[in-house]
Each structure stands twice: as C-alpha cells, then as structure tokens.
C-alpha cells in the first residue's frame, strides 16, 4: 500500500531524511517512533503530498508521488496534532465543507454516520471554537475518515489530549484499523502505541533503524526502542 525507496529530503543545507526505505502492506498498523527532530513529521508530510521529496521513489495506494498527488490525496486521510478545522463554522459545516472538497455528492448520510462514530452528533450545530481540545481532535478524525480513505496517517494525534480523550481516540483508531485500513502513526507515547500497532518502526537520524512486528519485539517496546536508538 505504501512503498518508499531511497527517500531524501533536504531543507537548504540540512538533510532531514537520508535515503529512507519504508514499506507498509494493506491493513497494517505501523507505529513510527523516534526522537524529536528524527524526521517523522517531515516523512508523513511527504506521504501526504504536502511536501515534495528531494530524491527517491514513493508510491501510495498504487500511485506515484508527487506526479499523481491528487489521486493519492483522494485515498488518504490525515490527522495531525492540529485539528485542521474552522472555529467559526459548526461541526456539521466543517464536515460538509470537506465533503464538497472530496467530491462527496449528497453527503448527509455520511455526515450523520461520521458524527455518530466520533460521538459528536449532539454537538453537530455548535461552533468548533466552543469545543474542547479532545472534541476538536475527534472531529478532526471525522474529517479525515469522511471520504472513507484506504490509508490513514496520524501525526502525534494524542498531543494535548487528556486521559479520557486519549481513550476515546484509541477506540476510534482501533475501529479504523479493524476496518482493514492501512495506518501509519507517529507517537512518543510508547505505552499507548504498544496496544494499537501491529508493527513498530524506529526512525532516527533520517533512516529507519529498526522494524519489528508485535511478536518480534523481543521483550517490551521500550527496550526495543532504546536498542534501536543505541544501535
């Protein structure tokens, strides 16, 4: 579903990604771990076609990037620690706007379905700026799954959420994964991703330094992570 070969990204003289190779099969839930500044967000932004690679080959959902970026974006849902929502529009208006941008014709049924899934049906007519951080993040997930994407990218989705909101987010993430969607998520919260992901990759100094499935961790995730950074 995602294939990346020899990906390089430079910002001026600074090289952030140094020949990164990465592959995700359909239905996998990959947790992308790494210290601050490792290049996780840059990598996800390139996969989301928000940033151009300097060098390398990328294919997402069978389409090459950046040449067929629009086709990739139609199959992609992205959630970041920013909600990407308009505070002066209601929850429903925000989703309706994105439904139009994704070419969903009569979106009423889908909108109701998504609002129900993220537990915001009762607040559908409230302005987003009146929402708590957790509610905004739930609506952000609603926005990202509105067009039923095949691939989902989550960039630190738990940032700034309280325990209850994190639990609700995890419930939605599990539901997304259970539907067979391919998920790549960056996070610093090892305890939380250990329960969610089916594979763990460590990105350090611009390359993937370790990769293991749930069974291949050889102990717990923290030891695996520390080992990957030390190696």
């Amino acid at each position, binding site marked *: 579903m995602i294939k990346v070969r020899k990906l390089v990204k430079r910002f001026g003289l600074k090289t952030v990604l140094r020949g990164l190779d990465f592959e995700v099969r359909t239905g996998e839930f990959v947790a992308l771990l790494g210290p601050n500044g490792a290049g996780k967000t840059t990598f996800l932004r390139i996969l989301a076609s*928000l940033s151009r690679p300097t060098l390398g080959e990328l294919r997402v959902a069978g389409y090459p990037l950046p040449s067929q970026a629009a*086709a990739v*974006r*139609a199959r992609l849902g992205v959630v970041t620690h920013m909600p990407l929502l*308009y505070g002066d*529009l209601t929850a429903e208006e925000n989703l309706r706007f994105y439904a139009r941008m994704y*070419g969903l014709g009569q979106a009423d049924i*889908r909108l109701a379905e998504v609002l129900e899934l993220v537990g915001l049906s009762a607040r559908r007519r409230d302005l987003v700026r009146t929402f708590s951080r957790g509610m905004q993040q739930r609506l952000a997930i609603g926005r990202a799954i509105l067009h039923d994407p095949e691939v989902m990218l989550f960039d630190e989705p738990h940032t700034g959420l309280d325990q209850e909101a994190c639990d609700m987010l995890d419930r939605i993430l599990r539901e997304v994964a259970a539907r067979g969607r391919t998920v790549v998520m960056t996070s610093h919260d090892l305890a939380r991703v250990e329960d969610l992901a089916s594979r763990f990759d460590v990105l350090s100094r611009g390359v993937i330094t370790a990769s293991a499935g749930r069974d291949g961790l050889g102990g717990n995730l923290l030891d695996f992570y520390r080992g990957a950074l030390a190696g």
Partner: protein
Amino acid sequence: MSSDRKGPTPSSRPPASFSRAVFAVAWKDLAAELRSRELLSAMLVFALLVILIFNFAIELAPSLRPTVTPGVLWVTFAFAGTLGLNRSMAIEKDRGCLDGLLLAPVDRAAIYFGKMLSNLTFMLIVEIVVLPVYSLLYNTNLFVPGLLGVILLGSIGYVAVGTLLASMAVQTRTRDVLLPILLFPVIVPVLLSAVRASGGFLQGLPMEQIRPWINLLAAYDVIFLAVAYMVFDQVVEE
C-alpha cells in the same frame, strides 16, 4: 468508517469539480466571516479611518478634488485590502487549515480562486461602504458607471496578486510585514492604471484618453490571474 460502503469508493468516486471546489472555499470563508466579522470589521474601520485622516490632513479646493480623489481612494483600498489579505491567509495557517485544504484531492488552483473570490467579495464590500462616505465628506459624486467599472477591475487585479503573495508571506514568521513589502512593488502597474483611469472618469476626460489605462488594467488582471493559476501549487508546497 463504514465497512459496507454505501457510496462510491475513493477509487471510483469522481473528484470534486474545479468550480465546485472554488465555490466551496469561497462559501466557507464567507460563512465563517459572517459569524466572526473579524476581517470585515477590521478592514472597514481601517478604511474609514484613512478617509477621515485624509479629510483632516488635506483641505481640498473643489477644483482639485477630481485629481486627488483617485489617489486617496486607491491608497485607502490598497491599505485596507492588505489588512484583509493578511488576515484571510492567517486564519488558514494558524489552525493548520491550509494543510486541510491542500490535502483535498482537487486542483490546488481551485483553492487559490476560492480564496481570491472571497477576498474580492470582502474588498468590494469595503468599497461599497467607503464610496458614499467619501462622497459625503468631500462632496464629490463618485457614482460614475465608468469609475465603478475601474474599481472592479482594479480590485480584481489587486486581489489576484495579493492572494498569491499572501499565501507566500503566510509561511514566514514576518508575514504581517512581508506582505506589503512584496505586494506594493508588484501591484504598481495595477494601482497606476486604476488611479489614472479613475481620474479620467472623475475629470470627465474623453474615453479615448481613458481606454489605454483600462486596457492595461484588464491586461494586468489576466496576466496576474494566469501567473497565479500556474504557480500557486509550487508556492504552497514545501
């Protein structure tokens, strides 16, 4: 997320049409502004203050008014417009909404034209308010059909290049300062043509003398719109 997909899947669903995306972006901006009135009120108050300051600063003899009025009007529109352009893009950037727009599977030029359409609407609303106030303060009739046409053409040119440069400036930390520095040198041909054509109508010059300025204005509008259409994708992508 529905496992039993009721609608078409992403692979079979046609992408949003260009015009649909343009109007969706413009509708979103207008709906949000209708609620907050943040941008329009700032532009309006600023424009009216500029007009008032000019009124106190320069005591105009009636014979001088047709020559000075176009300059005062376009300085007011340009300053108020810059305020609006900055704010309009800042709203997108501050909450990460620009990324949300760029993630949509539409031709990114549609995002530019949608933002341009809403910015143009805001600018025209300010102009609709400013013109009668100026007429009252300076006792000058500004409701000349030709002049209104020039204001429309000038505003399109201003907003066309302003929206593009605002989307560049908003990526920087110094966006508030950077936009006027980038915009005003580039917009000189539009402002010059608009001021000359507006002056021509107010002074009652024959159409033969005004037409070259209108043609120049229309040509710049087309050029700026075409350039923005071609480069917007590169401007907003990292």
